[in-house]
């Protein structure tokens, strides 16, 4: 058994949840602290691998990525783009005011 539970505190979980825009209920946050601690302890094993002089691999490039020409193409109509939105107003996505003008 490689797994030991390294500490990840509830405060740390709350900090990460805020970065991730994720609302966690009380019991959820506690469970998350336990699970993340266990998983992070498991991935610690990567520290034993010698990666000095090994370049990072961000993606596989067997394809040889070539972007398509930057030419205008037909796009979605406003109606299509808005069809699935939970709230729409005056041809746009409706959200609460996020600039406090008070």
């Amino acid at each position, binding site marked *: 058994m490689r797994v030991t539970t390294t500490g990840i505190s509830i405060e740390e979980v709350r900090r990460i949840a805020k970065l991730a825009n994720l609302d966690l209920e009380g019991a959820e946050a506690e469970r998350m602290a336990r699970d993340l601690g*266990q998983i992070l302890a498991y991935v610690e*094993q990567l520290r034993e691998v010698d*990666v000095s002089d090994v370049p990072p691999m961000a993606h596989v490039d*067997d394809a040889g990525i070539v972007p398509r020409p930057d030419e205008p193409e037909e796009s979605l109509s406003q109606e299509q783009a808005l069809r699935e939105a*939970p709230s729409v107003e005056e041809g746009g996505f409706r959200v609460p005011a996020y600039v406090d003008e008070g």
Partner: protein
Amino acid sequence: MTAVRDELLEMAVGRLAGLVRSGEVSAVEVTEAALDRIARGRDLGAFLTVQAERSMERARSIDARRARGEPLGALAGVPIGVKDPICTKDVPTTAGSKILTRSRRDPGDPEADPERGWRPPYDATVVTRLLAADAVLVGKCNMDEFAMGSSNENSAFFPAKNPWDPKRTPGGSSGGSAAAVAARLVPAALGSDTGGSIRQPAALTGTVGVKPTYGRVSRYGLVAFASSLDQIGPIASDVRGAARVLTAIAGHDPHDSTSSRAAVPDFEAACGKSLRGLKVGVPAEYFGEGLGEGSGGAGKGIEPEVEASVRAAIDALAKLGCEVRPVHLTTTKYAVATYYIVATAECSSNLARFDGVRFGLRASASGRSGAKEDLASIYAGTRGAGFGAEVKRRIMLGTYVLSAGYYDAYYLRAQRVRTLFRRDFEAAFREVDVIAAPASPTVAFKLGERVDDPLAMYLADVYTLPASLAGIPGISVPCAPAPATTDRPELPIGLQIMAPPLQEERLFTVASAFEETCPPRRAPL
């Protein structure tokens, strides 16, 4: 009548398409048969939604075109299931998540209903290509939410079940696609594979599953999980059927800059060739104890029945003329750790788009009643209410490994180890043409068995993750099943073959030859 109809779905994909093309069977008959069988197999939970009317309409138009003397495509009238993260124009697409469903209109509505799924304004490229080949897309297949899981139990709606033993998982995340094909509700389906999500369920259900080379198939219209790993591929009842579906969907797409410009061969033509002289590598690291070690006793390496069956399959390859030799893939034991950093980092970024503004669910922050409703609370509340436990766990882990102070230690290091996976395979493929290994360390496990132990669930993917990290193609083809015991019926086992980038033809050559020695079997319905 039912028996005749069922026969249509039990035949190989190519033969079925041939009968429709020649007019011996109509697309309408085949579609009716599939819809009937899907209804009878409803308890398997293989489909989230079924498009009965749309399918029948399409079948009629295919028959009409034949009647006018027009030639039909390679998948003429073949009913195909499409995994639900794949966009289908105007047809509900949920990716197995509540967050891609519209909010309840009244409290009496069921809380999570795939019929209220997001309706994409466009088809994924793979869908366009299947339609161009005259396939009939009958429904959207169940899956783990956003393809995150190995048992289908992370579906926001209901788990899919393994038709060989409904108390067990069909695997995941393409569990619905695999269950549907195993029970021959459809002869073929599309899945997606990020870390094994096609090959593992194919192994656990006795179907043929192919993860193509990264970039072989366009990802345009695939709801993204981990963009450097995601790849769409077929699950089918026979090897040639899988080859035919892959031939139809593969190839460059201007809408996906990571899609390969390499020419697409007729993969079916690679089937049936001799294996004489082909060098097959067997990685010692994929056998024996130790690999699955690490959590709660659920990962104790390979099960003896699995090892026996896969070794017997490799012996069969030797009898077919292959030269079998050992190879070493020394980085294998770091696959789970590497993958769960790389994939979660990418998912935390990709899933940022689900915020309750442009599509799907919108909710306010929970536990903040009375608080002013602002944009931040809509984001956090929608995501808190709309994502399931595993998706939240991965978003949190990914956010953590990308956050300031941890990036180098976790994410960058994992990317460096990923390079070693690539190098491992490059070295092995200098010595051998293909690699043969198990696709899963275990047979299908029981539903509920691992849901409380995320790490044990992750270890289910240990044999499929390396090929995903390296971007190389792999296939799982059924080998001899594990015999029935007092505790359970006979259960399928998968032989995994891996090949160098863009060498899928080798997979089909080996798998089709092996299939001759171990013909496809249909699960009971």
